């Protein structure tokens, strides 16, 4: 009887704790979405932000966020992939690899404002890149690398050892086994890891304030020459992202509809991150089905 009562009590406590988490989540998400979604409109998404008047949009910030994300992934993915393959497949358990792992853990818990200030000193000042998309992308790479590396390493470690042995036993070299057997099996997990880390990068503000800058330059979306200073693809221009925009309008904004703008921008940010998360799951499942099942030729 006693153990039965303890069990019931423990179950209730656990349910209660879960309920708290769900309530907090629903509270935050609901609050952001209810406050922001009504103000989201096609006009808001497609017009430039305004400095003084009401009715500005977030077209440039949305594009900048996505562009920075793409650049960051372009830089960080090859590095993280290589590092993860090394850690998962080649590294012996020595003090060197333990040191590497610890470093990655420390880096991943580094406050993003520290990454931002470091990026400011190194890229903006020392390398003379100025407040620019490329400086922001490099700072975000520092911010993203540890998480991405450990996500990919986990995905690779998730491939059963039996798969590697199957490759070796067929006379495949270690690299052939990794490339042809291990990586395709790990691909769904790798994609999920990339997209989940992308969600974090997308919402990052502190690392960008001092690197990508806070001013929106005049951008011409029909100018595809990325070396032209007005081109939307120019990586040397300063660029404000959604998260930085929220921070800015709330600290120094003088537009009359600041509350609406920041609420709607927050809602948009949250929605995009939610889409990333669901997208990661769907894409991962779809890839897994496709890689393991029949290929129609």
């Amino acid at each position, binding site marked *: 009887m006693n153990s039965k009562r303890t069990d019931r009590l423990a179950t209730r406590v656990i349910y209660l704790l879960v309920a708290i988490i769900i309530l907090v989540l629903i509270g935050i998400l609901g609050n952001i979405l209810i406050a922001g979604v009504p103000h989201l409109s096609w006009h808001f998404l497609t017009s430039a932000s305004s400095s003084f008047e009401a009715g500005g949009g977030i077209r440039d910030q949305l594009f900048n966020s996505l562009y920075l994300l793409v650049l960051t992934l372009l830089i960080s993915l090859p590095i993280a992939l290589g590092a993860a393959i090394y850690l998962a497949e080649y590294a012996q358990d020595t003090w060197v690899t333990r040191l590497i792992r610890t470093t990655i853990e420390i880096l991943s818990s580094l406050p993003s404002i520290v990454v931002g200030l470091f990026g400011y000193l190194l890229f903006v000042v020392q390398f003379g890149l100025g407040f620019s998309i490329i400086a922001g992308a490099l700072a975000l790479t520092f911010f993203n690398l540890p998480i991405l590396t450990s996500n990919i390493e986990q995905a690779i470690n998730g491939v*059963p050892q039996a798969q590697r042995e199957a490759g070796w*036993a067929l*006379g495949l*070299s270690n690299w052939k086994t990794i490339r042809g*057997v291990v990586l395709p099996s790990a691909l769904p997990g790798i994609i999920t890891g990339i997209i989940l880390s992308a969600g974090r990068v997308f919402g990052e503000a502190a690392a960008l304030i001092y690197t990508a800058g806070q001013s929106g330059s005049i951008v011409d979306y029909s100018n595809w020459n990325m070396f032209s200073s007005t081109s939307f693809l120019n990586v040397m221009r300063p660029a404000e992202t959604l998260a930085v925009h929220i921070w800015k309008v709330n600290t120094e904004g003088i537009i009359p509809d600041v509350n609406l703008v920041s609420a709607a921008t927050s809602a948009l940010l949250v929605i995009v991150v939610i889409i990333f998360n669901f997208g990661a799951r769907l894409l991962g499942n779809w890839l897994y089905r496709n890689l*393991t*099942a029949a290929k129609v030729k």
Partner: protein
Amino acid sequence: MENWQNQTKYIKTFNNDECELYTHNLSVFYGGTVQKLFDVSLGFKKNTITALIGASGSGKSTFLRSLNRLNDRVARVDGNIMFHELDINQKRINVYELRKAIGMVFQKPNPFPKSIKENITYALKANGEQDKAKLNQLVEESLKAAALWDEVKDKLDNSALALSGGQQQRLCIARAIALKPEILLLDEPASALDPVSTAKLEDTLKQLRSKYTMIMVTHNMQQASRISDYTAFFHLGRALEYDTTTNIFTNPQGEITEKYIQGSFG
């Protein structure tokens, strides 16, 4: 557990030229100091099936995995493994080439998460075989040899993971023999299979005997007696007795061997 010193070793020996492969004083160490295998010297005759039996931890799998150098990454292997008058337990041996000549099938079926056909062609393509007609022919040949062709010939492009466990295991055999090895190492190939699949697998192995030399670890006494020609009994890292399967099962020399076969331990 029984102490090995209580039993003299009874090891049948062959002339070296009768053997497809033989080992001389093979010892395996894990982590540099922990010895798992002690001076095992066994010969394996061409076109026979040899069963390696013994309790869990007796070293039979360790022995088997040393033969195609699969222990390289985790253990130190001392001694000689003679194959085609060449000691293959040397650093300068190209293990990738070696493993094409000494194929292996594992305990749990481990097909690649690819189509049935790609499971067989992947290693062939990696070895440089690009001719489509040749590849298709090899797929058909090896699937027929593994007695799987009739069951899968209409769905070669389907996922190998959709096959039953027994079919997957025969696919793994087909994948191994597509490389035209001389020796097949089998590490408890039927332990994850139901009795019907096991029977089919055993039939397949018996048919393959005419072409390949097979060395098979098994926990199943009946299986060893049903399909093997020779049986080696391992105990605590030592090969204690090695003889024809008939002799081992009807007239074992050693006391421990007899006890193990009767099921008193293990």
